[in-house]
């Protein structure tokens, strides 16, 4: 299997022109394998007993807001952009041909806008650091638990558990790589934004850029597939729903989160029946939420 696609440039020099499409197929296969593997693994793993919390601390509302409307909107717009990008990038290579280029760069522009929005929003309005906690011990414990069910369950998480945080970081790195290279690559196609100039960089530089873009794209196949998979898993659906409805219920909150790390106050969250939505996510209100490390 080739990792790269190479070609002789007009001067006969050997240059990189992108990643091998074999990698795309590998990613697809890996994604499928992971999904199947994980599903089997979960099946084989013995059921973990989740004891319902013995008592409900005072002041915890019944519905706890996890994602503000702004966050949800961001997430879904971004996911649409991402899916469009992936579909327009890879489906034609797989053989189903359609006019993908315009859609691809337009979705790319949308993705960039959502990312910019997200960054500003996260810095200005969200608890930026709640996502950027390192949480080494939490990570070690999580890993141990995954590897062996015998190992004690990791300590309950703050608003963003370790695996979520890690996924976010990977996605940040990969998406930024795709975005930066993608923006530069737009210089080579026709858009209303500027005159194309394929000679902005040398062949070699362009080649590296194409490879980085391709690798990020291929990685995104894996990342997005696994993300969707987890979102659809029955035991995770409560959290998936939170990305739709915005809130989680108290039971899941208490079961999965450490109220000390994700502090929820009774902000008068009533219920879904039309009353004021909660101000549950303390982290969103208190920028200086306690950091674990």
């Amino acid at each position, binding site marked *: 299997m080739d990792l790269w696609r190479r070609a002789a440039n*007009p*001067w*006969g*020099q050997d240059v990189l022109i992108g990643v091998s499409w074999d990698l795309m197929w590998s990613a697809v296969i890996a994604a499928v394998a992971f999904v199947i593997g994980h599903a089997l693994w979960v099946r084989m793993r013995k059921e973990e007993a989740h004891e319902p919390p013995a008592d409900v601390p005072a002041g915890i509302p019944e519905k706890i807001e996890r994602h503000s409307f702004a966050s949800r909107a961001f997430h879904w717009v971004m996911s649409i952009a991402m899916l469009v990008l992936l579909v327009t990038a890879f489906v034609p290579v797989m053989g189903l041909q359609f006019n993908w280029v315009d859609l691809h760069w337009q979705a790319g522009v949308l993705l960039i806008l959502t990312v910019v929005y997200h960054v500003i929003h996260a810095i200005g309005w969200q608890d930026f650091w709640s996502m950027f906690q390192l949480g080494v011990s939490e990570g070690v414990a999580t890993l141990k638990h995954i590897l062996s069910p015998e190992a004690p369950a990791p300590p309950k998480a703050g608003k963003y558990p370790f695996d979520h945080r890690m996924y976010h970081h990977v996605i940040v790195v990969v998406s930024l790589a795709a975005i930066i290279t993608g923006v530069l690559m737009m210089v080579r196609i026709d858009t209303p934004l500027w005159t194309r100039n394929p*000679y902005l960089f040398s062949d070699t530089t362009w080649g590296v850029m194409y490879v980085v873009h391709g690798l990020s794209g291929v990685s995104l196949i894996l990342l997005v597939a696994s993300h969707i998979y987890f979102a659809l898993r029955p035991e995770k659906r409560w959290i998936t729903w939170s990305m739709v409805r915005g809130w989680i219920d108290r039971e899941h909150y208490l079961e999965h989160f450490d109220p000390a790390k994700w502090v929820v106050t009774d902000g008068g969250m009533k219920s879904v029946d039309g009353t004021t939505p909660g101000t549950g996510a303390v982290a969103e209100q208190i920028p200086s939420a306690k950091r674990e490390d």
Partner: protein
Amino acid sequence: MAERLVGADIAPPDLHAKITGRARYAEDFRAPGMVFAKLLLSPMPHARVRRVDASRALAMEGVIDILRADEVPSRDGPREACLTDTPRYEGEPILAVAAVDEETAAAAIEAIEIDFEPLPFVIDPLESLRPGGPNAYVDGNQFSGQDGWSDFKWTNTDFAKVDAGEMPDPSCPVEWTKGDPESAFAESALVLEETIVHQSLTHHPMEPRSNMAYWEGETLHAFVSTQSSQQTKFALAGALQIDPENINLVSEYCGGGFGSKIAGTTVMQIPALFSRKINRPVMLRITRYEENYVGRARPGFQTWLKMGFLQDGKCNAIDLIIVQESGPYGAGDFNTAGMIADLTYTPQNMRFRGVSMYTNTPPKAAQRGPGGAQIISMMEPILEKAGRELGVDRFEIHRMNAPRGDVQFGPRNATLTSVHAVEALDQGREMFDWDAKLAISGKRNGSKVTGVGIGLSPYTAGSRGRDGMMIIRPDGKLYVHQGIGNLGTHSIADTARPAAELLGYNWKDVEIVWGNSARAYPRSTVQAGSQTTTAHTRANHAAATDALRKIREVAAAALGGSASSYSVDSGRVSGPGGTMTLGRIAERAIAMGGEYSGEVLPDDVHAQTVPAAQILAGEGLMGIARDNYGGEGNIYSWVAGFAMVELDEETGMVELKEYVGVTDCGTVIHPRSLGAQVFGGSIQGMGMAMTQRWVFDPQWGVPFANRFYTARPPGFLDIPADLKWGAVGIPDPQDPVGAKGIGEPPVGAGAAALTSAIADAMGGRCVCRTPLTPDVLLAEIEGRPMYGRLEQHVG
């Protein structure tokens, strides 16, 4: 009475072979054990070979060997070698591989690992003139034998003007001034200033420069495509540094050269060297794609022209700047262009500045009417524009500015042996019916507009000959040994006609011997610059005169009486003592020996003629002489071209409706062939003006018009079904025969008649760029020109 040979239509003796497929061009020869060479061409316009690994290629079955640049002769400076490790244009041959068949050789080329270091390159000469601009060579962009390389640039001030669309005032390596142009312009009633671009274009003869060679001991047998035979043998010997007498050069036919194969080709060294290395015959079949590179091209010009006119239309001053795109190995067109401008418009006051710029494009060489064709096609429409603006009839403005017999031109006031440009114009006016045509100029028919124009084009058309050599054998036939080449002009036969006529021969008793150096050639001129007709009719005439003297002396010795009282006719010599066949005379000459049979040669024949004469000595009565006719002044021919076109304003398409070409080329030896030369040259000029192009991608320095369908030489449907030609027919007074050459001047005439006629159809607007393809014209009509005024290599 023997037939008249001068002025008759006689098919050349090689025509039968040509039309039955028997004629053998270089690629038609075979030799036992012959192998095939293929070339690896440079992919970059300027580079250095860093590493070559041919091991995989050499290991292939059927691959014999590789020939590298260090095994071929090379010289310092901007000089071409047949293979190089420092390619100066995309497509320059780097190495050759020989294999048992072409397919294996091609596969072997692909199997070679080769690594190049790209170097800065320049395609547009103006870029190299800009301060800080790239050069075609690592060491500079100008070269002189004494001082070596230098870096020649114009100043920022010059370029400020260039970029502002004004005529700059640059210094140039070549500059000359006649009269006082500055004051003359002040007196001009009209001063026209134009920027004109003439494209470079490849020669593309039908036969690519394929060739084959093998060695037999010390003797090289070379089968080449060349315009000139005798001179090529010496050129090849010089290049290979071997004794010329060790070369058997076979060049029976040449499928066109047009200046690109004057003394053979550079690539003819490759089979010669390769076959010596591997000791097998080597065939190098040059493809059309390769021909685009290793064939030659006409240099392009970027020109600023200022022309002053008096009220009556007389051109009184010219200021001309030419930047020439010269490729990596130079060309001299621009110098000639300056001379021709002065000759054609006789301004009396002229300044010429020119610079030849090395560029990383395929090599340039003389192409039919070099320099002259370009400048004429560029300037004639400007002359007509002046006529239009001054209200002077366009025919009259050509006529009044054309030179008369006393013309002096160029920086050294060169003179001509004869000039009848005015007569050519007058005759053309009548044949074309200029006055009637002028009446329909500008007439519309739907979207089509009629335009008429004239191009008057001079060019050198002769030189003094070298040696002539012929022998009358006991069979009574006259064998004319021609050292000139057989490049398709029929001069191989026609230059023997005045000689044969002088000796009273009927054409059936004349044998032309040519095409193989073993058959003995005398020293001859190169076939270039339309020299042959003049030079070689003279040389042959001199040899025939020598033969005639000897015939008479032999006859007088045999029959009695004075030699001068004998005359020749139809293969017999007759006089007071009776009559004898020339066959008998030949026998007697052999018996007499000495100078009669060529055992003793005249002192003044060239050393290169001697060995050839020795081959024939003793085989008959030899006529051999050097051309000592002398003469003063340059020999020039003229063609006046008249064209009528129809321009479709909705598509930019131009249809050539009528064309008349009338020449002043002295005595007409072969009318039909002369007509063919007038038309052929004119049509090549039309191709230059209308279709042929030379396009490079500026980023990569790579040409794209590298095949026929992209380079677009004119085809059957690009010319009218009817053309007319005429000849003034006034013999050149300084010449025993009076014939002048014709190859070069029609090119400028055909091109200029078209550029002028198109400008006329455009209402007098000169696009000042060639080729005038539909896109260029339509864009101009729409007022949205696509190319910059000075942009070169586009289209």
